[in-house]
Structure formats: structure tokens, C-alpha cells
């Protein structure tokens, strides 16, 4: 990373002598996105206080050792305090790192080395301890592996604390900030960030560090912009100057010029407008002009996706894919791992619902843990529910975890790739077995958890009347339904043009499924990509679909589309498409409605 200092020469920029200097730009590594304009607060905790050095008499050695012990005890107490604070604020996993700090204080090798030098050199304990910690600091700074070098700063954090305690100085910290500031420092230690006044720190800029440093991790956790690796920027910045941290471009701009401020101001206004629009849509229902409501849900892959689901205003999670658990690892996930993830999602999204899809492995998703033979036609092969029903021990782990997590009552579950009623019956029988096991063990679960079947194989669509009697809902997986119905591999460029969601065959299948479901008093959702495209989504609503589930980012646009049209228009359009023969004509019909009624989409 090279550092360039650029100065914006600007004739219009009238400088007030002494108070505000020229604009200066420092280049570092962007580690947490977004930008912020504010007042710099120079945090100088990295400067080691001047440590005195003086000779002591042999007889004073025990006294110096006693001082050392007192400092270690004080340090221990401070670390335990920080650990407790972090644990409460961010969860025990973040607090775990302080176990390492505690071990440093208890490190016999370190303590013996300090005492040995103390006895040999007869110098005051601060001096001896500084010398020893500098020796280790030197060793750590030579570590080649960036991540391990960063982590060594944890050790430095502790030795610094011990030194402060030996000197009887309280360490400076960031807990007493009474206004919003951007913290500029050579480095910010884990305990500094832990004690920091969270509401008043709006950005970080540090001289050292990389994407994996604790400052970076903390900034992302707090969702504030941060730039690290700014070399010696902190030396050249005074507290109270205006700075901009651009966590997208990796710059720190000191004394921004009028032009720069205007540029960032405009960007800010644009973002705010967009966010305002999003925010408005977030709380509004997906209701048509004439009062018809449709349920809009989101698709997710892991618990970390839930905040985005809520930020984009989904009313639930219509598809929680569970394959992620099995990826990139050699062992199988445990029941508790499954449980924790599911419960976590259910708790976060409560009182809204989440539909967990039992694992859909095979096809394009390999399972490295199990010895699954290579197949000629993986999409038509041993996958999803077929695989699970053959490996019942494996499947039951997931079923148990889902049931255990269902105690809040907002979890629903569905089976992927159902081709006929036989699979539903087998899977339901296994589910029943697991429920009885749990009851025997006295573990609570939701006995009325809704169970659905995915409709993505044409044979399931065509026997929807049979399947509907044994499930609580359907979820149409349009990606696979289209692929299987049209016999087209959409990844194959030569035939991808055949993949047409608006093909009459697909619309007829969906209409059949919806009509049957409603006759049997169960509801139907769509969780494929079809649900995320406004024109196709309107078509689905016209066919009677009760719920659309798509990726979070598509939701605002979808809501906006739905809120601009009337249900009678949608029905009218949906009725008319069955008279048409060409998929493109059908799609045009839906697009016409959008062009006519929906004023310009959100520019995403």
C-alpha cells in the first residue's frame, strides 16, 4: 500500500490563516463501508508513559516484586471488568479473547523472566518489565503472517496495562466522550474499543491494522465507517479538525475543501432520500390500491441475513436454505449447531414466521462430508428429500433441531423436491417419530408446526390435489419447476433462451396448484426468482399466490409496484394472459400494466 498525499489546489478555497489548513488526503485500507464527516478526536493511548529507570538495593527486591504482584492483580481485575462489559454488550464469544489476556498475566515464563532480570540487574520493576515486554514486542513485530501479527497486539495491550498500573496511572480511555467524534489513533486496542462510548464514536481511522484487525472487526460490528493502515496519518492530525472518513474508498480527508464537502453532502442527501423511501416502504404493507394484501417474505441462507430482511420490510422469511451448514467443512454439523441457528433466526424474526427448508443437497451442491457418488444427471439424481429419506439418521438430526427450535411457534418447515405423495408420507412419518422422541425426553416443541411441500417437480404440481391433503401449505420453487417442466438447463447458454417463466405451461401449472390448494384450504407461496421480478410477481398475484418470497433487496421495489396497482387490474391482466400463446406476449401484458401504473422504479 503506498501512501499518497494529494493536495487539492483550489483558488476559490479561502483559507483562514492558522485555523483550517489545506485539504489533505491520506490513503489507507477501507475496512468498514460508508462515509462520515465529523470532528477528529486524537486518541493517544499508544504512547508509553515515560518510564523511569533507577537502581535498587538488593534488599528492595522483595518490595519491587510485591509492587509487580499488586500491578498484576489490578490488571487482572481490569481485564475481568472489560470482559464482563463486552460479554454483556456483544455476547460471550467476543469476550472470549480476554481469556488470552488473563493468561498473559498468569504466564509463569514471563513472570519468572521479569523476576530473574530484576534480581540480576537490580533496576526498578517498571524498567525491567518494559524491557521484557519490548523484547516480546520486537519478536511479535517480526511475524510474517499478517493475521498472527495483528493478534499479537492483544499481548501488547496487556503489557501496556500492567505498565500503567505500575506507574499508578489510570489509562486513558474512550468512555468519556461527550460529543460525536471520529477517533483517530495510531492503533486502538481491543480493550480501548471495549470501553469506548459507542454512541459518540462515528468513525475510526488508524495508522496500523488490516482487514482482520480488531478495529476493523469492531467497526463492522458497530456499522460505522473505518479506514486503517494510514501509516503516520495520526501524527499529522490534531483533535477538533474536520475530517471525512470514506470507508468505501479507503480515504481519510483532513480539512476537506468546500468542493469536497459539497460532493459528500450531495452523496449524503442522495443516500438519505433513498433510505427515507426505503424506510417508508419498510413499515407499509404490500397492499394494492383497492386494499388487497399480499404477504412479502424474504429468502435467507444464514442467521446473519436476518437484519437485512427486517431492514427491507419483509413480513417473514419464506425460504431459509439450510445447505450453508454443510459447505466448506469436512465434518457434519451437530444438532446443536442446527438448533442454535434456527432458534436464533426464529427469535430475531418473531412474531413473524420463518419457513425452514430441509436440506437440499445434491445437484449443484456437493456434500464433501459424505461419500456421494458422481452422477450423470445430478439434477435428476440422488438429492434433496430423496437423499434425506435414504439417510434417515442424517435427516433426523435436522428434524430434531427444527422441532426443538420451534417452541416460539413461528417456525414452519418444508420438504424440497417432492415428486409425489409417497415422499411426503415418509418424511412426515419420520417427523412424527422425532416428535415422539422429543416428547419422551420432555423437550418442548411446537406440536402444530406447519409442514409444507415444495412444488418444483411437475409430477408434484399435477398431483397437488393428493399432496394438499397431507400438508399445510405449498411453496412453488419456480426455478426448478421451470427447469424440469421445460427440460432446460438454464446454465447451458445454447438453450437458456428456452427458460421462460411466462410460458403458458408454467402459468397453467401454477394456476392449477393455486386453485387446488385454495380448494383444499391451504395457502401457496412462491420462493423462486419469479417472485422478485415485478412483472412476473404481478402475474403470480393475479394467479392467486398468497405469498411471494425473494431476496431482501428486491422487496422495496416489489412493494412499491404492488402499492401502485389495483387488484382488479391485476386480475384482469391475469385472466387475459390465458388467451395468449407466446411467452413474450404474456410478459408484455404484465409489463404494460407496470408502465401504465407504476411511476418509475427505485434506482437500486
Amino acid at each position, binding site marked *: 500500500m503506498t501512501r499518497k498525499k494529494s493536495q487539492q489546489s483550489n483558488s476559490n478555497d479561502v483559507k483562514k490563516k492558522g485555523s483550517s489548513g489545506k485539504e489533505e488526503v491520506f490513503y489507507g485500507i477501507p475496512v468498514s463501508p460508508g462515509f462520515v464527516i465529523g470532528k477528529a478526536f486524537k486518541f493517544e493511548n499508544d504512547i508509553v508513559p515515560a518510564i523511569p529507570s533507577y537502581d535498587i538495593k538488593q534488599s528492595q527486591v522483595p518490595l519491587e516484586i510485591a509492587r509487580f504482584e499488586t500491578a498484576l492483580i489490578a490488571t487482572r481485575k481490569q481485564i475481568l471488568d472489560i470482559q464482563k462489559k463486552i460479554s454483556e454488550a456483544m455476547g460471550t464469544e467476543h469476550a*472470549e479473547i480476554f481469556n488470552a489476556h488473563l*493468561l498473559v498475566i498468569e*504466564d509463569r*515464563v514471563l513472570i519468572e523472566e521479569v523476576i530473574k532480570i530484576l534480581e540480576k540487574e537490580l533496576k526498578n520493576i517498571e524498567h525491567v518489565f518494559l524491557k521484557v515486554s519490548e523484547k516480546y514486542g520486537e519478536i511479535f513485530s517480526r511475524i510474517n*503472517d499478517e493475521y*498472527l501479527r495483528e493478534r*499479537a497486539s492483544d*499481548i501488547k495491550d496487556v503489557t501496556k496495562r500492567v505498565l500503567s498500573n505500575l506507574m499508578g496511572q489510570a489509562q486513558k480511555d474512550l468512555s468519556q466522550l461527550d460529543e460525536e467524534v471520529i477517533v483517530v489513533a495510531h492503533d486502538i486496542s481491543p480493550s480501548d474499543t471495549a470501553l469506548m462510548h459507542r454512541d459518540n464514536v462515528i468513525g475510526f481511522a488508524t495508522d496500523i491494522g488490516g482487514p482482520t484487525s480488531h478495529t476493523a472487526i469492531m467497526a463492522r460490528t458497530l456499522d460505522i465507517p473505518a479506514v486503517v493502515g494510514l501509516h503516520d496519518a495520526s501524527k499529522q492530525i490534531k483533535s477538533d479538525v474536520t475530517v471525512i472518513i470514506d470507508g468505501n474508498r479507503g480515504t481519510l480527508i483532513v480539512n476537506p475543501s468546500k468542493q469536497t464537502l459539497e460532493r459528500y453532502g450531495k452523496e449524503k442527501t442522495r443516500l438519505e432520500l433513498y433510505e427515507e423511501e426505503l424506510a417508508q416502504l419498510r413499515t407499509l404493507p404490500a397492499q394494492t390500491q383497492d386494499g388487497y394484501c399480499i404477504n412479502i417474505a424474504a429468502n435467507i441462507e444464514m442467521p446473519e441475513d436476518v437484519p437485512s430482511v427486517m431492514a427491507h420490510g419483509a413480513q417473514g422469511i419464506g425460504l431459509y436454505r439450510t445447505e450453508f451448514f454443510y459447505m466448506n467443512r469436512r465434518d457434519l454439523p451437530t444438532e446443536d449447531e442446527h438448533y442454535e441457528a434456527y432458534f436464533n433466526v426464529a427469535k430475531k424474526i418473531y412474531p413473524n414466521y420463518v419457513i425452514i427448508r430441509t436440506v437440499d443437497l445434491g445437484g449443484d451442491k456437493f456434500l464433501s462430508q459424505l461419500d456421494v457418488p458422481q452422477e450423470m444427471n445430478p439434477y435428476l439424481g440422488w438429492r434433496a428429500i430423496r437423499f434425506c429419506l435414504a439417510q434417515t439418521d442424517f435427516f433426523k438430526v435436522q428434524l430434531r433441531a427444527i422441532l426443538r427450535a420451534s417452541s416460539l411457534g413461528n417456525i414452519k418447515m418444508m420438504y424440497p423436491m417432492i415428486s409425489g405423495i409417497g415422499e411426503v408420507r415418509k418424511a412426515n412419518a419420520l417427523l412424527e417419530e422425532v416428535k415422539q422422541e422429543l416428547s419422551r425426553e420432555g423437550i418442548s416443541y411446537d406440536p402444530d408446526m406447519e409442514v409444507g411441500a415444495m412444488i418444483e417437480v411437475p409430477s408434484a404440481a399435477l398431483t397437488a390435489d393428493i399432496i394438499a391433503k397431507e400438508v399445510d401449505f405449498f411453496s412453488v420453487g419456480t426455478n426448478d419447476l421451470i427447469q424440469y417442466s421445460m427440460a432446460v438447463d438454464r446454465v447451458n447458454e445454447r438453450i437458456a433462451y428456452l427458460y421462460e417463466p411466462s410460458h403458458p405451461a408454467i402459468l397453467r401449472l401454477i394456476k392449477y396448484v393455486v386453485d387446488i390448494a385454495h380448494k383444499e384450504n391451504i395457502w401457496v407461496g412462491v420462493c423462486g426468482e419469479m417472485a422478485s421480478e415485478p412483472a412476473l410477481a404481478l402475474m403470480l398475484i393475479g394467479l392467486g399466490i398468497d405469498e411471494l418470497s425473494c431476496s431482501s433487496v428486491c422487496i422495496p421495489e416489489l412493494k412499491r409496484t404492488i402499492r401502485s396497482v389495483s387488484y382488479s387490474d391485476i386480475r384482469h391482466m391475469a385472466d387475459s394472459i390465458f388467451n395468449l400463446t407466446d411467452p413474450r406476449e404474456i410478459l408484455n401484458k404484465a409489463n404494460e400494466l407496470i408502465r401504465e401504473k407504476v411511476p418509475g422504479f427505485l434506482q437500486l
Partner: protein
Amino acid sequence: MSKIIEKEIVIKNKLGIHARPAALLVQLANKFKSEICVCKDSEVVNAKSIIGIMTLAANYGSRLKIKAEGPDAEDAIKALVQLCNDKFGEK
């Protein structure tokens, strides 16, 4: 009479022995009475010292030798090897 037991291990967790795994290793080593040391190339450190372990800078793929001498040497080696094979509880 206690014998010396040694075993070679390879670091399998992606991030190597940073502070958290080091803490786990040191905590585990401290549960045993035996003298335990960890060697990487020519360096030898006390397995019960976190600073020592951190100075090894054992990253992904590093080969380490663990040596234990004492009444519970065998158990100590077994436990420490297990911890490394479990990738210190990381992915």
C-alpha cells in the same frame, strides 16, 4: 521414572494459532503436571506460556512437535493433539 513422549502435529485451522487458540492450548497444558513444550523449527517454547506460544507464530500448515515429560505425559499429548485436530474449535 517418567518417559518423554513426543508427537508431531500440523496446524489445520485457517487462521493459525492466534490469541484464542493459544489461550485454549495453554489452558489445556496447564491442567497437566508434566513439563510440556512445543517446538517449531529450531524454536522451543513452554506450552504453559501464552507468550511463548504466540511467539511461535504457527500459521496454517505449520508443523509443530509437542513434547511432554512427567507422570501424565501420555494423557497430555493425547489431549493436545486432539485440540489441534479439532482445529481449536474453529472451522
